[in-house]
């Protein structure tokens, strides 16, 4: 979704451009909309590395496949990679989030990234608000007020 609003550069500033990675299955998923005219996948493909799937990742992938019938192929591959390599798994999907947490994988969400942008000084709060609005429009995403509170509150949400 950051690619859709041309904000992958900002994401790179927050996390380090060299740390942004996708797995091969996710790259395949990202690339499909190119076939019917979307341009945003090109940005996503250009700004992210391919996570190297080592021999340790494949058995974990197979194990997770047996457990995670409610997740997509790319998600399972990414979670297996993150578990073996100690990487963070970024998702907004509640099912994928719960599953990854159950597997002991560290997960970050959209609101974490957006909060992180202003907390660390990469962007101002107003810039983050504007970015969130662009994401909502581009991806037709519903963002409940509670989530906006998580992103923007000065106090720690309970």
């Amino acid at each position: 979704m950051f690619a859709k609003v041309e904000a992958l550069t900002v994401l790179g500033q927050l996390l380090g451009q060299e740390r942004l990675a996708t797995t091969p299955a996710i790259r395949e998923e990202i690339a499909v909309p190119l076939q019917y005219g979307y341009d945003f996948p090109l940005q996503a493909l250009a700004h992210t590395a391919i996570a190297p799937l080592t021999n340790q990742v494949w058995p974990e992938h197979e194990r997770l496949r047996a457990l995670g019938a409610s997740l997509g192929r790319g998600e399972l591959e990414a979670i297996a990679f993150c578990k073996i390599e100690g990487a963070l798994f970024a998702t907004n999907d509640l099912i994928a989030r719960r599953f990854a947490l159950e597997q002991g994988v560290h997960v970050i969400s959209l609101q974490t990234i957006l909060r992180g942008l202003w907390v660390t000084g990469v962007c101002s709060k107003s810039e983050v608000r504007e970015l969130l609005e662009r994401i909502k429009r581009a991806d037709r995403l519903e963002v409940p007020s509670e989530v906006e509170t998580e992103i923007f509150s000065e106090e720690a949400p309970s």
Partner: protein
Amino acid sequence: MEQAIVLDKLDILVEQRVYPDRAALTKDAMQALLRSRPELRQYLAVELYRRGEMSLARAAEIGGVDIETIKEILREAGVERRVPTIGAAIHEEVEWLRRIQRDQSPRSLPLIPQS
């Protein structure tokens, strides 16, 4: 009428060992149905996502479409995609981001594009 008779006699396929048992026959019949009627797969995908039983990516796979298309199908079906709240976990997650900025582990971040 003739069709009803044929359906009543499907056990012959089991008796003749075409299928090992009634369950295998039913499974194959269901798979054939979903192959021949992709709109039923999409209906299933929408309902499973709406009920919170599948991730968006899995719903796309079940529907036989890509992620952008399942988003559109869900929108047309009136199913909202909402960012779930995470409560106090956001602070732990932001702390992970800070650790990354300080160049500590974890070292990489797969981006999951679907949600």
